[in-house]
């Protein structure tokens, strides 16, 4: 056992150890009784310190925003939304159907998401996507027409292992400020179903995959993308920036 590691306890406590150093220290923590008992002591010694904080009133509307984000991809009768960043930059692979070039990477991501079962973990851990697109088939790909905007986009309905997914890729969207977000809607008659939420990158590019798992049968007529004041809108409140019939 390497006793010199005992000096790293504080840096480990504050998350300053990375990679191999971190692993080595965690191993050390299991072997070194002195460190283990000291670790417990540090936790005990610091456990009251948060109560030194001055009371601050949370900002107006914080509860609604936080809960909306927490439940965002678990809405009942709402599809799961999983923003995928940087997908557009990934290498494109050929797809059997003549579809837009970026679809391949997104499909792979969609499948990985369904395999991982947890989009949040996927984003956090930044796992590599598996190239599984051969099991999915594209039903329909449409170009999203700009609606009083200079934005552009493409949407695809894809069936993956029996599950319908909606893939949306956008370009040139205006940047979002504060709590603003873009939302994707599926339209059937005069009903609008929220498919999910995303925020584009600095260049206005966004790439998202949503599960389409509403109860009952639906005859989707159109896809719309709107710029919303918050991610919590249950009905489109902001401007529709992209719209196309399916």
């Amino acid at each position, binding site marked *: 056992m390497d006793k010199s590691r005992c000096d790293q306890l*504080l840096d480990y406590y*504050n*998350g300053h150890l990375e990679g191999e150093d971190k692993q080595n220290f965690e191993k050390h923590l299991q072997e070194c009784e002195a460190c283990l008992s000291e670790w417990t002591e*540090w936790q005990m010694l610091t*456990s009251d310190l948060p109560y030194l904080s001055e009371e*601050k*009133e*949370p900002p107006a509307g914080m509860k609604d925003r936080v*809960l909306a984000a*927490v439940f965002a991809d678990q809405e009942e009768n709402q599809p799961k939304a999983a923003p995928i960043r940087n997908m557009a930059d990934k290498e494109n692979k050929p797809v059997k159907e003549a579809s837009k070039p970026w679809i391949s990477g997104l499909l792979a991501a969609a499948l990985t998401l369904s395999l991982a079962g947890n989009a949040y973990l996927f984003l956090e851990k930044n796992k590599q996507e598996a190239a599984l697109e051969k099991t999915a088939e594209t039903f329909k790909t449409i170009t999203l027409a700009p609606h009083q905007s200079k934005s552009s986009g493409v949407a695809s309905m894809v069936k993956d292992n029996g599950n319908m997914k909606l893939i949306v890729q956008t370009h040139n969207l205006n940047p979002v400020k504060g709590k603003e977000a873009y939302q994707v809607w599926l339209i059937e008659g005069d009903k609008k179903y929220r498919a999910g939420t995303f925020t584009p990158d600095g260049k206005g590019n966004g790439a998202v995959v949503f599960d389409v798992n509403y109860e009952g049968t639906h005859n989707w007529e159109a896809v719309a993308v709107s710029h919303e004041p918050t991610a919590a809108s249950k009905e489109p409140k902001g401007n529709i920036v992209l719209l196309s019939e399916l």
Partner: protein
Amino acid sequence: MGTISDFELYERIQKDDREALELLYERYEKLLYSFAFKILQQKELSEDAVQEVFIKIWRNKRTYSKEKGKFSSWMLTVTRNACIDLLRKRSKTETELSDENLQIPASENVEKTVEWREEREQLQSAISTLSEEQKKMVELFYFKGESQQKISESCGVPLGTVKGRIRLALQHLRKKYNEGRDKYGQEPM
């Protein structure tokens, strides 16, 4: 504090009970937000940190167990980690952000919010018995999440003594705090 314990709420959350998460949120919103603000000194980031904590609780089930100590302490640790993470990301991208904006009173909560004024006052009086150097070291270590190297540099003390000095300060603080609590017969939260 309420009739439902934190742990019972946590158990209900394991079964995807949204109401339980909402109750837990209402109970701890102010404490977690205030703690996040103490570290981050900025409204939006503090809200982001609290949001991250509840996303973790909701989506990564079964991360807490009773062996990890009190549920509230565990949540505060998760909050601190989220804040320090944000603090580090922020210091890489931006130089300084600070606001002390007007406080807008939040809507009246159904669930009773955790309050900690007396704990804070007793902790502050315990802190006042520390030397200036000790105060600074505790601040840099706990509320800024700095490395031993940086603390050693900013306080001008040898690297090898940083851990021992902070530990001594915290032990002293705890002793004073406990004395104060005994005097007023208060229960820790």
